C-alpha cells in the first residue's frame, strides 16, 4: 500500500533520484527537487491518518548517526523512519577535537559491516557525508555537515513555501542572519536559485561568505532592502559565540540592526511568510511578536520536516521499485 506511486506517475519528468545518497542540494536537479516535494505531498497525508504508518521501508535498517546535538532534526528523521516502518537505530556520539576516539572512517566501516541500508549523518565537519559516501555502500543522507549543507532543511522550507505560494519561481525570498556559518543558508540558496526564486541574503559584512554573489543571489547589509516586497523572510540563528569572535559588537546591537521586528516586516508583501529553521533566539534575530505572529510558519516547517524526510528516505530506498520487490 503506497501513498505515493499514483502521485509520482503523474509527473513525467523524473521518477527516481540519480544518486544513491543525498549529500546536498548541489547534486539535485530541479526535476529531482520537484519529485521529492511531490512525494512529500503524499507523505504528509500519512500524518493525518489515525494509524500513522505505511510499510514502505519495511525490512530496511536506518542508522541515525549524530555527532552533534540535535533535537529537531534527529526526532524528525526518527519519526519519518518509523512512519515508513523502517528499523531505526540512533547513535549519538559526543565528539571534540581533543578526544582521541575512533575515526569517522572506522565508525562508518564498522557500521557498514552490519549492513544497514541508510545512514543519516549529522556532523560538525563540512564534507563528512562525502567521506562516508566514498566508504559506504549504504545510502548516506546528510542531516547537516558543518557549515556546508543541510539539504532536508532546504527541502522542507521549499515544501512549506510551495504549500502557501503554490510555486517558488519568481518569489522574493530574504534570508537574514549569520550567513557565513550557516549550512541552512547554503542549501536554501542552491535550492531556491535552481527553482527560479529571487534570493536576497542579508547580514553584517563580517558574517557574509566570500563571493556570495557568485551563488546567484543579491547580497546586502541593509535589512530594509532585503525585506522590501519580500514574499518570504527566512531568519537564521545567531550564535552567542560569534560575538566573542568580534563578528558584531553585541546581541542588542545585532537585534537593532538586523532583528526581525513587526515594523520591518511591514515593508514586505502583505502575505509574507516568516520562517526560521530553529532553534530560535527570541529577541536576538527575531522578535517574539513576529515569531508567534500570524505570518509565522515556523511550526509548519517542523511539521513538514517529517513528510519531506519520509519522501527522501522513500526515494533513496528505491521508491516504488523497492516496494514492488518487497
Amino acid at each position, binding site marked *: 500500500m503506497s501513498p505515493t506511486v499514483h502521485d509520482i506517475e503523474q509527473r513525467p519528468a523524473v521518477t527516481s533520484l540519480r544518486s544513491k545518497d543525498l549529500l546536498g542540494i548541489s547534486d539535485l536537479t530541479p526535476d529531482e527537487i520537484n519529485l521529492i516535494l511531490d512525494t512529500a505531498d503524499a507523505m504528509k497525508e500519512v500524518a493525518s491518518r489515525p494509524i500513522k504508518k505505511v510499510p514502505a521501508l519495511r525490512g530496511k535498517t536506518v542508522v541515525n548517526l549524530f555527532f552533534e546535538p540535535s533535537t529537531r532534526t534527529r526526532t524528525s528523521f526518527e519519526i519519518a523512519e518509523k512512519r515508513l516502518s523502517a528499523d531505526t537505530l540512533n547513535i549519538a556520539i559526543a565528539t571534540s577535537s581533543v578526544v582521541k576516539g575512533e575515526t569517522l572512517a572506522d565508525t562508518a566501516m564498522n557500521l557498514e559491516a552490519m549492513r544497514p541500508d541508510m545512514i543519516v549523518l549529522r556532523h560538525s*565537519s563540512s564534507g*563528512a557525508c562525502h567521506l562516508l559516501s566514498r566508504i559506504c555502500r549504504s545510502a548516506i543522507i546528510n542531516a547537516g555537515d*558543518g557549515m556546508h549543507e543541510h539539504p532536508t532543511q532546504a527541502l522542507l522550507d521549499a515544501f512549506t513555501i510551495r504549500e502557501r505560494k503554490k510555486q517558488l519561481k519568481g518569489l522574493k525570498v530574504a534570508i537574514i542572519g549569520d550567513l557565513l556559518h550557516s549550512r541552512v543558508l547554503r542549501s536554501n540558496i542552491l535550492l531556491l536559485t535552481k527553482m527560479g526564486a529571487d534570493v536576497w541574503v542579508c547580514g553584517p559584512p563580517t558574517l557574509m561568505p566570500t563571493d556570495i554573489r557568485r551563488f546567484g543571489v543579491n547580497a546586502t547589509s541593509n535589512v530594509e532592502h532585503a525585506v522590501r516586497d519580500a514574499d518570504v523572510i527566512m531568519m537564521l540563528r545567531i550564535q552567542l559565540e560569534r560575538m566573542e569572535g568580534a563578528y558584531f559588537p553585541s546581541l542588542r546591537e545585532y537585534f537593532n540592526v538586523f532583528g526581525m521586528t513587526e515594523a520591518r516586516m511591514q515593508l514586505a508583501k502583505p502575505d509574507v511568510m516568516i520562517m526560521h529553521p530553529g532553534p530560535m533566539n527570541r529577541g536576538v534575530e527575531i522578535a517574539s511578536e513576529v515569531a508567534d505572529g500570524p505570518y509565522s510558519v515556523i511550526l509548519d516547517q517542523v511539521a513538514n520536516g517529517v513528510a519531506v524526510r519520509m519522501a527522501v528516505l522513500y526515494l533513496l530506498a528505491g521508491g516504488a521499485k523497492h516496494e514492488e520487490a518487497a
Partner: protein
Amino acid sequence: MKRLLKGGRVVDPANGIDGVRDILIDGERIARVGADLPVNGATVTEIPDGLIVCPGFIDMHVHLREPGQEHKETVATGTASAVAGGFTAVACMPNTSPVNDDANVTTYILEKAREANLARVYPIGAVSKGSQGELLADIADLRKAGCVAITDDGHPTKTAILLRRALEYAAMFGMPVIEHCEDPSLMGDGVAHEGYYAAALGLRGIPGAAEALGAERGMLLAELTGSHFHVAHMSARASLRAVRKAKEAGIRVTCEVAPHHFTLTDEALSTPIAYDTNTKMNPPLREAADRDSMVEGIADGSVDAIATDHAPHHYDEKKVEFDRAPFGIVGLETAVPLTLDRLVHTGRIRLTRMVELLSMNPARILNVPGGTLSEGAPADVTIIAPDLKVTIEAARLRSRSKNTPFDGWQLRGGIAATMVGGRPLFVNSETRISL
C-alpha cells in the same frame, strides 16, 4: 673512476651554457666541460637525443619527518624519493620531533643521510628553541653541525622582535632566515583559501592577506637589519607584489613557489573529488588570479626558486574529515614533470630559467655547493627527458607517503637519470639512457 657524458645538450645557466657539450666526471667532481672532449680511458655515456643534462636539482623545502615521525617518511625514503624526482640535494625543515633546534638533532639527521647515501641533505635549523617562539635556538651550534638556514617553519616566527633578532643573528653566519609567512589571527582555524570554493563547501577560509602580511613583516625587518629574508612557499599574489616592491627597493629578499601553487587552484577542493584531503595544504591552493600571478612571477624572474614543500602524511592521517586532516602533500616526484608540463611546454619559461629555479638559485640562496656544472663542482647531475610521457601513480611513489592530488595525472616531461657525486642513483628505464 672517470665518466664522460657525451654529446648531450647541457643547460647550465650559471656558466651561460645552453648547447651540446661533453662533461668529464672524475670521481665525485666535474673535471671538464667542453665540446668533443677526448675519451682518455673514461667510461663513455652517450646522451641520447632529446635528453638534457642539467646541474643537479636542489629542493630547498622538504619535510623528511625524521626523527620522530618515521611512519610518514624517513631520511632514507625521502632521499630515495628525491633522486627519483631528479633532486640531488634537499634542505629539510626542522619541525621534526624533537625539533631540529639542537646540534645533536642536526648530527642525527646527517648521520641518517650518510647511511642512506642518496641525495645530499642540508638540514635547516629552528629559529627558536622547540620552535616555540620564545628563546633563540643555539644557532652557532646548529651552523657548526651543518645547518644551512634557520626557520620556525610550520608556523611563522612568533613575534616581530624574535624574527628581527633571528635575522640579525643568522647574518653572522651568512644564513638566510626562511619564513612561513602567515598572520596567525587572520589564519585563525582556516583550512582552505578564502574564496568561492571554500564558501560553497563550508570550509573556513585563509585569506591571501594572511600570507602577505607575514611576508611584509619579514621584508620590513630584512630592510631594518640588512639581512637575507626568504619567503617560503609563496602562494598569494599580494605576497608577490610585496616581494617585487621589496626587491626594487634593494631589500635582500628571495622567495620560492611550490609546484601545486603554480598548477592548481582552489577549484580542486570541489572537483574531481569533493573534500579531497590531498588538496589541503598550508598555504592553501589559491584562486586562479593567485595561481596565474605565481606563474607570472616565475616567468619574469621575481620568483627565485621552485621548492616542493614536500610534506608526507600517512594515509590514516589524511583519511579523515577535511578540517581534521593535516596540511600538506608530497612533491619530490611530481615537481619536475609539473614544471616541464605546466611552465616549459606551455612556453611560460625556457629551460635555462627552469634550471635557475630548480638548481642555481636554491644553491645560491642556501650558499651550498652545486647549482652549476663548473669544473671542480660536485658531479651532481640531473638528466631530464622533457618529452617523456609520464603518468603519476601515487601507489608507486618512492616516498613512504602517497598523499598527492596528482594521482593519475598524465604529464609531458620526466627524469632520465640522477647522479650524486658522480654516482648514478636513479636511472629511468623508460628512457634510452644507460649509466
